[in-house]
């Protein structure tokens, strides 16, 4: 079975541009979460979507937005890119059923975003 897939693998943008990152969850998983991992740090929670609705939001500016599609795939959008947005963006999926904490999250390989 395919794991969590993210595209693209690498991306280079310049300041002020916008970017869209994509994530396909494991088949059957209805919850998708996004994390930002700056070099040398642990991942930080950005968003979680379940059944196409936002379930959780981290402490990120409004330049960051996301959505989930009927097939449970998700997009993370970042507008007006800043140098500090350079990071590895990780997507994680889970079943999302029942008590959320009982459902392990499965992570993708991430998208490396570099801002010049």
């Amino acid at each position, binding site marked *: 079975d395919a794991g969590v897939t993210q595209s693209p693998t690498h991306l280079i943008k310049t300041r002020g541009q916008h970017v869209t990152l994509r994530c396909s969850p494991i088949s059957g998983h209805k919850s998708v979460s996004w*994390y930002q991992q700056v070099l040398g740090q642990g*991942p*930080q929670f950005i968003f979680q979507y379940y059944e196409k609705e936002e379930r959780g939001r981290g402490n990120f500016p409004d330049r960051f937005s996301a959505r989930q599609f009927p097939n449970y795939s998700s997009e993370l959008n970042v507008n007006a890119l800043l140098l500090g947005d350079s990071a590895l963006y*990780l997507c994680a999926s889970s079943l*999302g059923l029942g*008590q959320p*904490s009982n459902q*392990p999250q499965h992570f*993708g390989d991430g998208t490396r975003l570099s801002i010049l």
Partner: protein
Amino acid sequence: AQTVTQSQPEMSVQEAETVTLSCTYDTSESDYYLFWYKQPPSRQMILVIRQEAYKQQNATENRFSVNFQKAAKSFSLKISDSQLGDAAMYFCAYRSPGRDDKIIFGKGTRLHILP
């Protein structure tokens, strides 16, 4: 707000030896979940072991075990019989039993395995 602290940025261990990675956390909640994740150079975050706070028994997964001290808010990871494939970044993480999937990660410990 919950925080997770890993005080060892890097550690090294001889192959086949045992190593312990430290983690402390801060929370006012009584019910929560703790994790250790491994991130090799391939970047994928892999769940190593999970501990429910309401369970007194320490979790074990083959060569990996934890020492969970709830009162001290300590959650260390012991790796026995270290193997070259264990070399990676290890993250300690915390999760509330709430509505969302938010996981709070520490800054990580880079583990080197010496042949």
